[in-house]
């Protein structure tokens, strides 16, 4: 197990270094002069321009620039936003819980409904229920979620007035941030009704972000379940007289979960892609909206290191999923 861990960790480092190379190159590949781009279109006098180049270290040779960038990263210095003068790390850390809360809500929705739908479709294979569920799943998988969000807003917010259109909490409430998770913070605070309000804000974005993972999980569960139901141990369990519900939900589903979990891990990247769109649409103050706004405002330190942080996150989650998978399946652990 230790050598497996070490091997996987060894793969992690070059990948991460590669990502730093990418984010380092990003800011230098911008056509034109980065200083002019950052300072805006107004004319700079040559001396100020040279000073800015020097301050940003852009007048040194490239390899020196890269090494000093790595040195900065190693010291935990991610630079500061050009707009707010706040450090990039602080901004990220402040907004990150909002994204996590949204993503967890979406995954919870997708996981529960997807497992249920996939299992039912597999059990009733070939029936109208199966065809209907899989048709819906393919539709969900093909969904342009930014449009799906607009349709849901149009119906539930504009037409019916059930849910708010943007943000995480109504301005009426004053909830002190403790954990950064609005659902937890509103419970901890003594504001009445704040929890329900936070829930109402969360529900539509969670549905939008959960749609594609839900479709993927439903399809995966169905195929994994069909595979497992053919196995001898299922027949043996049936012969022992186990009740159908116990057979399916205890014996079969547990074994069908392994491939589904892998897909779950692989979904983190696309979940973050979806979060960019969902947060922009619902004005959800998370890191996706933050990055898109930074790109719009040409706030390059935020773009550069925000992307780096997200990539690090994806690498880390995939690493953890890998390890968990290795723990569950010795065949993977011992493969060279």
């Amino acid at each position, binding site marked *: 197990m230790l050598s497996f861990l070490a091997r996987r960790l060894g*793969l992690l480092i*070059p*990948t991460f270094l*590669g*990502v730093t190379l*990418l984010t380092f190159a*990003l800011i230098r*590949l*911008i*056509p034109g002069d980065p200083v002019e781009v950052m300072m805006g279109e107004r004319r700079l006098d040559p001396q100020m321009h040279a000073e800015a180049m020097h301050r940003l270290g852009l007048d040194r040779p490239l390899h020196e620039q890269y090494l000093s960038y790595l040195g900065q990263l190693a010291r935990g210095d991610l630079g500061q936003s050009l707009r707010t003068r706040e450090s990039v790390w602080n901004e990220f850390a402040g907004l990150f819980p909002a994204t996590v809360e949204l993503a967890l809500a979406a995954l919870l929705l997708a996981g529960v409904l997807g497992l249920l739908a996939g299992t039912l479709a597999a059990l009733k294979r070939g029936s109208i229920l199966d065809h209907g569920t899989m048709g819906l799943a*393919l*539709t969900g*998988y*093909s*969904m*342009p979620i*930014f*449009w*799906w969000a*607009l*349709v849901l*807003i*149009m119906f539930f917010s*504009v037409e019916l007035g059930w849910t708010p259109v943007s943000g995480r909490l109504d301005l009426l409430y004053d909830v002190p941030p403790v954990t950064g998770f609005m659902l937890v913070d509103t419970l901890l605070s003594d504001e009445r009704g704040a929890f329900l309000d936070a829930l109402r804000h969360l529900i539509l974005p969670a549905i939008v972000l959960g749609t594609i993972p839900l479709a993927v999980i439903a*399809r*995966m569960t*169905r*195929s994994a379940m*069909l*595979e497992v139901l053919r196995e001898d141990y299922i027949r043996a369990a049936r012969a022992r007289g186990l009740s159908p519900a116990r057979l399916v939900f205890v014996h079969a589903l547990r074994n069908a979960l392994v491939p589904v979990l892998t897909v779950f891990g692989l979904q983190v*990247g*696309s*979940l*973050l*892609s*979806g979060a*960019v*769109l969902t947060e*922009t649409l619902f004005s959800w103050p998370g890191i996706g909206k933050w*990055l*898109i706004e930074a*790109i*719009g405002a040409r706030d390059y330190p935020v*773009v550069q290191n925000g*992307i780096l942080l*997200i*990539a690090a996150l*994806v*690498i880390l989650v*995939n690493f953890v999923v890998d390890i968990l998978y290795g723990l569950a399946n010795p065949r993977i652990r011992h493969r060279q």
Partner: protein
Amino acid sequence: MNTSSLASEPAWPSPLRDFCRAFARNRGAFAALLFLALLALCALLAPWLAPFDPAAQHRDFLLTPPAWLEGGETRFPLGTDELGRDLLSRLIHGARLSLSIGLASVALSLLPGVLLGLCAGFFPRLLGPSIMRLMDIMLALPALLLAVAVVAVLGPGLLNTVLAIAIVSLPAYVRLTRAAVLGEIHRDYVTAAKLAGAGRLRLMFVAVLPNCLAPLIVQATLGFSAAILDAAALGFLGLGVQPPSPEWGSMLAAARDYIERAWWVVTLPGLAILSSVLAINLVGDGLRDALDPKLKNLA
């Protein structure tokens, strides 16, 4: 002279015929293929099919509802947008943009992807692992974010959208080709070709590549639909094809402000995206089932 005896002979099993029969049996995929053909026709003939120039503004008819609704005009079957442009014409011209972005980005990522994948499979010592590490790095970034970053560097626009999407979808082709090559490379026919004196290039392109095509065709179909979705998402974020081009995603972005009073400008471009992506995915599922019968009953 021999034709009669040939015709009565039992037909040899032909992979192509088997494939066509298997595909045609899948009614959903077949219908989707017909829909796509229709869409492609619309895209090709857009200037002649569309009733109006997609950029023409009819200032007296701002946000006219579709023809079948009260206040609708028969001249504008699907209504007009906030500048009085005919929605049907814009959707037809949008099909042109979306399909060509999809095709171009699939071509631009399929070719280098297959080449890199072949190299990664055939040179397992140094070149292979370095290519795969590079792909791992690209996979560490969420696709849309990587595309956004590429556009942030190159600037928005049609060509850069294609380029960004091609870059983002490259790793999938590389990994798939490499996996297929590794599955084939130790087969007997490859050894036989090697012993018969085939050079490395011949081994790569003539012996192995044709046998790796099935998963690549399926992946290319899925890549096509993903490209349309990503292009629309970039357009929606204002980073893709720029207005006034009738790109479906950027049409949706402009329609956001009219969500409370003109449902058609919001609903119709999205339906266009959804139906074309769904049709392509249905065809992809059908292709996978027809090309690889082993997978048929699984997914």
